[in-house]
């Protein structure tokens, strides 16, 4: 795709490319807002949230090779924590800077809680246990409105405080030196900042002792153990790390939506995030970002075109646009995987592996 090797050799080109990307990311909300309107700006904000989620799951699945199919539970934990600590439901109104770290911590604890009993499990057994764990969390969120009302059950919690810093609320246009920054733009910059933070942490982790230990466990757990890696702690760390990223994203989601309900944390969501990781290119941070962006935007493109295109061709809407959109999405998943089984943008190591096994 992009010739990274050349960029590495030429520092000035690298600098220019980074600057270009920076300008593009900074201007993106204005360009998209002007070209496509607020709907797509909102989708862009969601894409950033999903990218954070996908990066978190990538640590567990991509780096450490632990197939987690209940990942959305941590997103849910983060979101509900925000909802409980900053809404009229309990009358608590904690500030954001206190909630997000708490959310990361609590989600991380849940990650350890899930990881600890599953250390001995491998592959598909791990998949089904994590899946069960995700469902258990969702069912509890759905039913903990009696005997004590904690989560408000299926109705969810509404009226959540928007993300705000002091008196500056991101839900309203922000005045900066006489220039008004709309809410969706402000959220975009906040999410972008945090997403970049997560990207930075992930890149640093990947090239650290811990990151190499994860890869070693993924490749061969017994050999990793023999090399002196404390596989138990390192695996738990992967779960906790991935979960805490999910928790942060969940908190942001709750503040952004101002509403949470158990419906947002179904198994299908876990599956979607997993698809982002695998389809983008497991283990490669840029691939995962691509996967996250693509799988958030693609269904929306289908949503906005499924009805009108039929209208234009047949003069009326013949097929249920909602079903048609998911049908096309499913087909896209199949086709991409058939033609690029290692993902759209695989990590160098996986690309080599795949070549090796295909030969």
């Amino acid at each position, binding site marked *: 795709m992009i010739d990274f090797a050349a960029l590495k050799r030429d520092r000035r080109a690298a600098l220019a490319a980074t600057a270009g990307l920076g300008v593009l990311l900074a201007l993106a909300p204005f360009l998209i807002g002007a070209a496509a309107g607020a709907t797509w700006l909102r989708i862009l904000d969601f894409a950033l949230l999903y990218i954070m989620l996908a990066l978190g799951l990538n640590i567990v699945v991509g780096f450490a090779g632990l197939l987690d199919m209940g990942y959305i539970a941590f997103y849910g934990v983060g979101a509900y924590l925000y909802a409980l600590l900053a809404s009229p439901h309990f009358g608590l109104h904690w500030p954001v800077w206190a909630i997000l770290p708490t959310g990361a911590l609590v989600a991380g604890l849940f990650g350890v809680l899930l990881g600890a009993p599953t250390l001995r*499990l491998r592959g598909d057994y791990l998949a*089904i246990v994590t899946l*069960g764990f995700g469902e258990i969390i969702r069912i509890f969120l759905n*039913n903990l409105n009696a005997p004590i009302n904690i989560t408000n059950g299926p109705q969810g919690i509404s009226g959540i405080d928007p993300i705000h810093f002091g008196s500056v609320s991101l839900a309203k246009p922000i005045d900066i030196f006489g220039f008004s920054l709309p809410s969706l733009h402000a959220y975009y910059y906040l999410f972008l900042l945090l997403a970049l933070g997560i990207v930075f942490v992930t890149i640093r982790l990947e090239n650290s002792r811990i990151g190499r230990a994860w890869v070693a466990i993924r490749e061969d757990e017994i050999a990793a153990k023999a090399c002196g890696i404390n596989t138990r702690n390192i695996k738990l760390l992967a779960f906790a790390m991935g979960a805490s990223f999910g928790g942060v994203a969940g908190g942001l989601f709750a503040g952004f939506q101002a509403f949470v309900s158990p419906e947002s944390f179904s198994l299908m969501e876990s599956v979607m995030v997993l698809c982002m990781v695998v389809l983008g290119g497991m283990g490669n941070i840029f691939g995962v970002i691509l996967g996250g962006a693509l799988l958030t935007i693609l269904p929306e493109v289908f949503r906005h075109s499924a009805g009108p295109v039929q209208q234009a061709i047949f003069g009326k809407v013949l097929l249920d646009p909602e079903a048609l959109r998911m*049908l096309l999405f*499913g087909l896209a*998943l199949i086709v991409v995987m*058939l033609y690029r*089984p290692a993902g759209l943008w695989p990590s160098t190591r996986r690309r080599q592996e795949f070549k090796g096994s295909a030969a």
Partner: protein
Amino acid sequence: MDIFIQQVINGLVLGSIYALVALGYTMVYGIMGLINFAHGEVVMIGAMVALTVISMLSDSGLPGIVIALIGLGAALPVCMGTGFAIERIAYRPLRRAPKLAPLITAIGVSIVLQNLAMLIWGRNYHAFPPILPTSEHEIFGATITGLQIAIIVIAALMMAGLILLVQRTKLGRAMRATAENPPIAQLMGVDINRVISLTFVIGSALAAVAGLMVSANYSIAHYYMGFILGLKAFTAAVLGGIGNIAGAMLGGILLGLIESLGAGYIGDLTGGFLGSHYQDVFAFFVLICVLVFRPSGLVGEKVAERA
């Protein structure tokens, strides 16, 4: 006590259906090491096709049993064809690919089938016409319907047939050889492509029967029913030890019993704190406990850690 017996009966009926579906998962997993995520949708398609045919014939005056059999006769080939096509399109090209790639295509197939069903049959629930005779029998103070007896008996017969097929026939031997080691099986003259295709077809046939059973038992069918049913059946297969046929049957029956007993007694056990809507929590909790102590399922062979 009669409540207990009643729950056991309900659990056995549910468990028989889970077991039939779980067999589809476990056969495919045993042979290819792949979770056939789309299997639940095959069950759904079986239920929908059977229900459509049965609804069309419900006024024809034919006896109920005959109509049900015609419905099944329509569902079987459709499901078998679907299973065959799934393997050909979504799994065969990826047999040498990284392990998660077929998982994603499976999810894709599942989404496609679900939405295809939604386009064909709409979003509404379809009621199963009351064509089957409703006779009730008393056992130890609990009631069991003729339909429930039929479900348990038919499921048992099909499972027995499957065991005979796998243990006694030439195809069964080829299946076991392929499960053991595909390249070596191929060297011994087994056409593994054919064996794998047939595995999918057989699993899908079981799914068609299970689909008819579910929709008849609950008098309802819906385009989304395959998802949760598949999830439960897969859980059952893992509970028993995935890849193991006897394990899938045991896991299915056990999961059915756990669910219905759990739903019946969870309120008493927790002093009314948790109600019957926690029945799924109960099922998954048992699953996690079993796997923590027996990481390869109840009757799964202990897989040697790779050297």
